[in-house]
């Protein structure tokens, strides 16, 4: 009888932990993925030698992060270049202003750096698909933070072998995401800072991606951002990419 009660307790405990992990991720996605966003972002890339380069682009995100369009405005060398990522970065097109050409990128390029930064195309895909693409496990809490471990399912195409997401209990906003490569070596860390409430959504005004393997980092600062925006039906198409 004792063993049955113990067994039921363990089952219940495991079930609750799984459910909680999933619920935490749901809550995080609710605050992280508003329907539409338009932001102007300043990006500073620091190389391992300490050299800095500054970029600026406009980011248009629609359908809860499913579709993203980046259009560079600075520096001159990339001004006018644009990247369209659809279906959570499963389909990527790049527009080169200088040659006025559009190239479609294959999924094998998803893990490549975007304009030399420490963000890959895959990093822009957002957390909306994490629930279906990853096995999620809740680890021991750290003070006022939930800790989730995400392991990609075997049929999912991703360059990461594991992710650890640190989420604030107060508003379910993630503080830190640690990315591990296929060999479970800690590759990158994304830190969100200066979290402010903009139009009802918590928004990290500064995000820093540190690449531990290459000793480089990319800092993103939001110059302005709005969630009160709607896009035409055909906005996330090649036509708008060329504009």
């Amino acid at each position, binding site marked *: 009888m004792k063993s049955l009660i113990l067994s039921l307790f363990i089952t219940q405990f495991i079930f609750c932990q799984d459910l909680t992990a999933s619920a935490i991720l749901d809550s995080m996605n609710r605050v992280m993925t508003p329907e539409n966003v338009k932001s102007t972002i300043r990006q500073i*890339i620091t*190389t*391992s030698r300490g050299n800095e*380069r*500054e970029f600026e682009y406009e980011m248009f995100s629609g359908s809860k992060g499913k579709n993203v369009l980046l259009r560079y405005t600075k*520096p*001159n*060398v990339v*001004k*006018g270049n644009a990247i369209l990522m659809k279906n959570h970065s*499963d*389909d990527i097109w790049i527009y*080169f202003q*200088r*040659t*006025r*050409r*559009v190239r*479609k*990128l*294959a*999924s*094998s*390029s998803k*893990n*490549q*750096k975007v304009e*030399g*930064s420490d963000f890959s195309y895959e990093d822009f895909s957002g957390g909306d698909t994490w629930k279906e693409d990853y096995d999620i496990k809740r680890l021991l809490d750290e003070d006022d933070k939930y800790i989730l471990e995400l392991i990609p399912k075997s049929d999912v*195409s991703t*360059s990461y072998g594991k992710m650890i997401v640190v989420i604030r209990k107060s508003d379910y906003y993630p503080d830190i995401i640690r990315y591990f490569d*296929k060999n479970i070596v800690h590759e990158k860390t994304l830190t969100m800072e200066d979290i402010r409430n903009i139009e009802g959504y918590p928004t990290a005004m500064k995000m820093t991606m540190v690449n531990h393997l*290459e000793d*480089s980092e990319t800092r993103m600062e939001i110059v302005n951002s709005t969630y009160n925006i709607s896009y035409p039906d*055909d906005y996330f*198409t*090649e*036509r708008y990419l060329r504009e």
Partner: protein
Amino acid sequence: MRATFPTYTIGIILFIQSFLIGQWNTGGYVEMEADITPANTFTYYGYYKLRFDLEKEINRQIEVNCSILAKQYWGQDEFLIKDYFPINPDYEFLSFTMNDTLYIDDLFLVWRTESLGELIIGRQPISLGSAYVWNPTDIFSPKDNFDPTYELQGVTALRWLYPIRSFELDGIIQPIQNGNDANMYLGLKGNLQHFDYTISVINRNYEYNYAQPYQYYKDTSIGFSVVGEILTAGVWFESNLVVRGDHYPDNREWAFGIDYTTPQSLYLLLEAYHNDAGAGYTPGQYYPVSQVLDYLDGKIRTLCEDYIMLMSRYPLNQWWSIGAWTLRNMNDKSEIFSLQLTGSPLQDIAVDVSIFSFLGSGKTEFGIQESWIRARLNVFF
């Protein structure tokens, strides 16, 4: 008489000033290229180029774009065709000259409406097709086979892009020089899962007869282009089949390719191309001079029928990458091999250093050429 560079510069400055008064968005670059052929005796040549782009959004619907281009060559600027193509010695005198230029490369108006789509009027950049080097469906802007990503010259045309549900209709009309006819393109672009495809009908006019200028041949063809991915590798196919032609009836032209980026960031690309209109090869024979002239004039995409390009690129760090590519003429078995270092030493500065080596016997397309080093510097503003 050649205009001197200071004359160009003064003209451009005056032009730019007039535009700046109207608060135009401006940009562009200065490009400097040096080429060295270290054959029996060194040959030096190159150019300076200035591109100045102006853009003005008149209102939410109308936008005007203008690009002014000035190019001045230095060193050797006249080249004998016989040094670059195996042609009959009777035509040894044929040459081409690199002339200094100052012209408006693009000047076009974009008019966007919700009900009528997008209308682009004037000299404009046009790039069609899905292939990397050879685009059989692009009759307007032939690429440089040695440098396929280089910017294309503007095309004087009227273009209409009209969305129909999830499709896009693309119509282009380019008047030809005699004014009696036009090159026409009508394409329907769609999407099926991870594949983008375009079906097109193309009407092209060729001025083939050099003895009688403005005499045109006409071809009507069906084009098809698709790009997508299979097992995470990018794949594309593009073809153009002439269904009614004065000059090349039943001409078939196609290209297919595949690219893949390894987890270690090594980028690999393979593209194959076939063109019925290309010349066949008979060992020891020269290529017909008319074929060479048509190729230099952009009327045919390649000199011969079959080619393969293989390319690789690897990032050394955020700003520098090394690459290698080879272009092989499958008919005469000659080949170009190139090593390339590209990068950006400072913000808004780009550098490209390439070494070209030519393999093959003396009477082949690439075998006749000497090795060559090219250095290119771009400063963007």
